[in-house]
């Protein structure tokens, strides 16, 4: 973590050994006003996200994880410090960045097809073209035949897959995932996790996953950043060995999985109050 902070810019595009930096948090502080009180959601947070890296931020609730995501997606801005995307400060939403939340945010008045095309509509893509692209994504994620159904007809897992199709339709290079699977039942969650990781690896995306599920963080990430409770900041960083060449399920069966799990658990434990 220390070397990241002292050399924030890695202008080495094309260098296979050290991929270029895509997202950079530089001493970011974010303050909210709640009634008449100030709440510091994030204090002096610094981290970087390299190209095609899968990084998880793991922490207790209220550690500013969702704030982090809003800052990167350009929906909110830091009170101090800077958030940079490909070297330039974030000034608003960028087509390079897509996000997926715990809430699928499907619009109940739109069909599945129309939900997937919403981003392409705002970008002014012609109807025929955007419908074609959405149809192929819908088919690819196993939802063929549901194009004209409304979201209420779909199960939670199917709805999250529509949300994924909507997010990927705009073809973002960087994906921000805020506990996207935590509302699903456990079996569905595991299945979706396998699918999601496979898709993101195939599409070669840069991913920042926000989660409080240690096993998930261990099994899918290249690196895990452990976040402290409010005000949130990164207090430790760990490299994880399982993301390359293992599916999340396979990772869980690796002999050293528990060791890594316990490492993160001990780091988190200090912040857990029951």
């Amino acid at each position, binding site marked *: 973590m220390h070397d990241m902070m002292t050399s924030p810019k890695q202008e080495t595009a094309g260098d296979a050994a050290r991929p270029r930096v895509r997202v950079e948090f530089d001493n970011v502080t974010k303050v909210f006003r709640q009634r008449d009180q100030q709440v510091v959601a994030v204090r002096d947070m610094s981290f970087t996200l390299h190209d095609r890296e899968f990084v998880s931020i793991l922490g207790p609730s209220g550690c500013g994880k969702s704030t982090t995501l*809003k800052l990167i*997606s*350009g*929906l909110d801005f830091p009170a101090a410090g800077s958030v940079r995307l490909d070297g330039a400060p974030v000034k608003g*939403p960028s*087509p390079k*960045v*897509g*996000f997926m*939340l715990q*809430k699928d*945010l499907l*619009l*109940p*008045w*739109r069909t599945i097809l129309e939900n997937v095309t*919403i*981003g392409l*509509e*705002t*970008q002014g893509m012609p109807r025929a073209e955007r419908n074609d692209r959405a149809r192929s994504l819908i088919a690819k*994620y*196993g*939802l*063929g*035949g*549901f194009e004209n159904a*409304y*979201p*209420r*007809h779909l*199960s939670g*897992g*199917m709805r999250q897959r529509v949300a994924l199709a*909507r*997010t990927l339709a*705009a073809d973002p290079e960087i994906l921000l995932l805020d506990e996207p699977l935590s509302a699903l039942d456990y079996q569905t969650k595991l*299945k979706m996790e396998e699918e999601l990781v496979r898709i993101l690896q195939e599409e070669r995306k840069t991913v920042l996953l926000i989660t409080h599920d240690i096993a998930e963080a261990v099994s899918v990430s290249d690196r895990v950043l452990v976040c402290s409770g409010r005000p949130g900041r990164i207090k430790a960083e760990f490299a994880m060995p399982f993301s390359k060449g293992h599916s999340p399920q396979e990772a869980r069966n690796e002999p050293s999985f528990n060791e890594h799990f316990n490492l993160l658990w001990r780091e988190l434990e200090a912040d857990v109050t029951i």
Partner: protein
Amino acid sequence: MSPSDAGGIAAAPRLGDDLYVAAHRSDRWVVLGAQVAIVAVAVALWELAVVKGWITEFFFGKPSEVLRYLVERTKDGYLVTHAWVTLYEELLGFIAGTVVGTAAGLSLWWSPFLSRVLEPFAVVLNATPKIVIAPILVVWFGIGLMSKVMIAVLICAIVAWLGAFDGVRNADRDQMDMVRAVGGKRRHVFWKIVVPSSLPWILTTMRINIGLALIGVITGEFLSSTAGLGYLVDSTAKLYQMSHTIAALVLIAAIAGAQFYFVNWLERRLLPWAEDHELDFIT
């Protein structure tokens, strides 16, 4: 997961489909039969009571006379003229008021400052019985058509404004963020999130307004007028022509009922995603 999932959902309804629908259809006929029977029995008892002299026609009217009046005076166009005046006033007021009020309420989304300023006015207006403006409008616009139309316009505009305003305030912040995140500008957020998510509120206000507009124009006709169903009710009741008063009431009820079902139909057309009108096999 996906193929079996999809197959299960697509195939499952087929099996129970016919039986379930058939059971509900026969239910519907039984209910309709009961409804017709209630009216028939009530009218028959009423007629019998008048014929037997248990109640007087002078005070209570007589169904056969109501029917005779309805048929004859519809044929000669007298009732059609009066019904048309009321309907014309009401629909004109309803449409103009709803359009203006809804547009005003929705456009408040663009100005959080103005919505905060106007909020207490909305609350007070909502709590006040809107019909109290009727006498003032009669003074302003005279005893003709215009005063009734304006009563309906004002009532509908206030209710539609409040409803649309409510819809705007209840639009989902995360959905708006989602549209911004996929590249939407403010106008996209407005047209793709704010307006459609306000539609249920707008339709609810239409349902309320269609009734309020009718109350508004009839009250206006009571106050001062020379035509309309409200005029007919008021003038015949003052002459103790109860059967004629009741005939006018029947027409008013028919108009109100038809409009209610029209708004229901409209709601199904506009909100296919929110309605439970289709058989929902998938839980």
